[in-house]
């Protein structure tokens, strides 16, 4: 009995991936999103191999050169995206920028998930006073203009990578907590949860082994959209000069840099912004598709 049921589960798992891929291939929007994300990940990994120039190398003699497919000097690579105010190759910097965006986006949305899922779980599971407190926290946080809150925190504690991630994670936990709370309330009275109690499971076991796995789908969707919003937020903070160290190439700081040259060198602000836009678009497309995939009622429409 034991062995047949586990082999059945294994069979189901085996079929799950092909079904997932088949559904993805049959959705053009989902495919576009997945391809964008794949490309961004590859670019981030291969940035040193792909970039024609050293992203940090200053070259004062070739500052503010417009994008071109022709090399400035014979034997050199062309500056596809032009150069910035310090003569650095913008194309190489945009490639490296993918690393920071991905890293910040992933870590901040995961950290926010851990915090938000825990609070949402407790709030939905125990209800009553716990729920009132968590709901109050959610309301307080949502009544803050995020940008101002983030600037506030960074101004107090200083900038830097770790602090930036903390601030961005702080901004996202609410998304997870709200979804998680709703999921727990919907799931906690189902038969399999009661069955788990009947078999002597404790609350923590029920929460993490029975309820959480059943809430993974909506959480994944939230995580995808959160990732997109985090990378946009990071860029906004970098734009205000509150992001990571200014020497590290990020899309936000490049856009910010280009602001002083809008009248003379449009490409400095414009091109990194397009990279950012495409990445956020990819994440949103994947999120949309995942939502339809997990909840087929929506895609019937």
């Amino acid at each position, binding site marked *: 009995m034991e062995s047949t049921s586990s082999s059945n589960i294994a069979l189901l798992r085996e079929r799950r991936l092909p079904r997932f891929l088949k559904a993805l291939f049959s959705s053009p929007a989902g495919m576009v999103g997945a391809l964008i994300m794949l490309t961004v990940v590859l670019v981030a990994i291969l940035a040193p191999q792909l970039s024609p120039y050293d992203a940090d190398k200053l070259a004062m003699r070739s500052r503010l050169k417009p994008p071109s497919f022709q090399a400035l000097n014979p034997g050199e690579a062309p500056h596809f995206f032009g150069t910035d105010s310090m003569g650095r190759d913008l194309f190489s910097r945009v490639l490296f920028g993918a690393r920071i965006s991905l890293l910040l986006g992933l870590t901040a949305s995961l950290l926010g998930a851990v915090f938000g899922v825990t609070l949402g779980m407790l709030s939905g599971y125990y209800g009553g006073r716990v729920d009132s407190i968590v709901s109050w926290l959610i309301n307080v946080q949502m009544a803050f*203009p995020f940008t*101002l809150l983030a600037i506030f925190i960074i101004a107090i504690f200083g900038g830097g990578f770790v602090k930036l991630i903390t601030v961005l994670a702080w901004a996202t936990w609410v998304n997870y907590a709200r979804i998680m709370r709703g999921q727990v309330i919907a799931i906690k009275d189902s038969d399999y949860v009661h069955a788990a109690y009947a078999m002597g499971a404790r609350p923590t076991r029920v929460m993490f082994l029975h309820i959480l796995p059943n809430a993974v789908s909506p959480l994944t969707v939230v995580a995808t959209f959160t990732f997109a919003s985090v990378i946009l937020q990071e860029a906004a903070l970098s734009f205000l000069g509150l992001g990571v160290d200014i020497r590290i190439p990020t899309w936000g700081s490049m856009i910010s840099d280009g602001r002083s040259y809008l009248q003379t060198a449009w490409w400095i602000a414009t091109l990194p912004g397009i990279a950012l836009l495409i990445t*956020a678009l990819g994440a949103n497309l994947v999120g949309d598709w995942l939502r339809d995939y997990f909840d087929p009622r929506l895609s019937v429409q």
Partner: protein
Amino acid sequence: MSTYVFRRLIQGFLTFLGVSGLVFVMGHLTGDPIRLMVPETATREQREEVRKRLGLDRPVLVQYGIFLGNLAHGDLGRSYLQRQEVSDLVFGRMPATLELALVSMLISIVISIPLGVFVALKRNTPWDLLGSALALIGQAMPNFWFGMVLIVIFSVELKWLPISGRGTFAQLVLPAVTLAMASVGYFTRLMRSCMLDVLGQDYMRTARSKGATERTIVMRHGLKNALIPVVTMVGMQFGNVLTGAFIIEMVFAWPGIGRLGVNSLFERDFPVIQGVIILSSVVFVLSNLLVDILYSILDPRISLE
């Protein structure tokens, strides 16, 4: 109905208390503001005198009590640097921010509601695809960047509109359109899916079978019902627009409270920062409250829950 409104009012007040407490506590984690207010050469005694004059030498809890008491009177303290009442400073800048936020909300509603209905009615045609794609791009766009692109196109290249500032109608156009874009994508997609939801309902079929004209069906039975969730989201989005305004104000040098807040942060002018955050969260809480009440009027089922 009235108990519901009362409960929401209490909730709003508690939220506000949380915000003010958090702001106060964080403001006091920020190093020593005295350092910024006195010249490098000031003696210890001079520093202490300034500290005393501003009440920064009292226990933190006492300071918070005084802070709340003053807040109740609408007194937000004095700016460290500008030698002006914070309430005057903040309220003086509020109209500019509200003007920007409201005009951009108006732009996004005027564009996205008809667009959303249109793409819903043209479902699965190239129009739908085009509309939805535009909405998606609008949502994924960093809006401060979009503002700069607009500056490059309309101010630098075409020279049609001014780059920054406030006062004339021409100066309002670029910031308001920039700010509107973020919500246009969102509202259009929302309107489309709400409309699709409604189009499949039984009462639509009933209306059709009674022989109502297509126009009546779409407008009276369809749009009216599809608008209910959209109204809520418009209200919730107002807070986001306000937040978005903070950054847009920096791009276009728009003299609103966002720019005031950001500049004060760089100068560590706490009373002003506190004032900006508190006032904007009050606006936010109030607008959510209004939306909830409006929602319960539109859909009486809500207040029964």
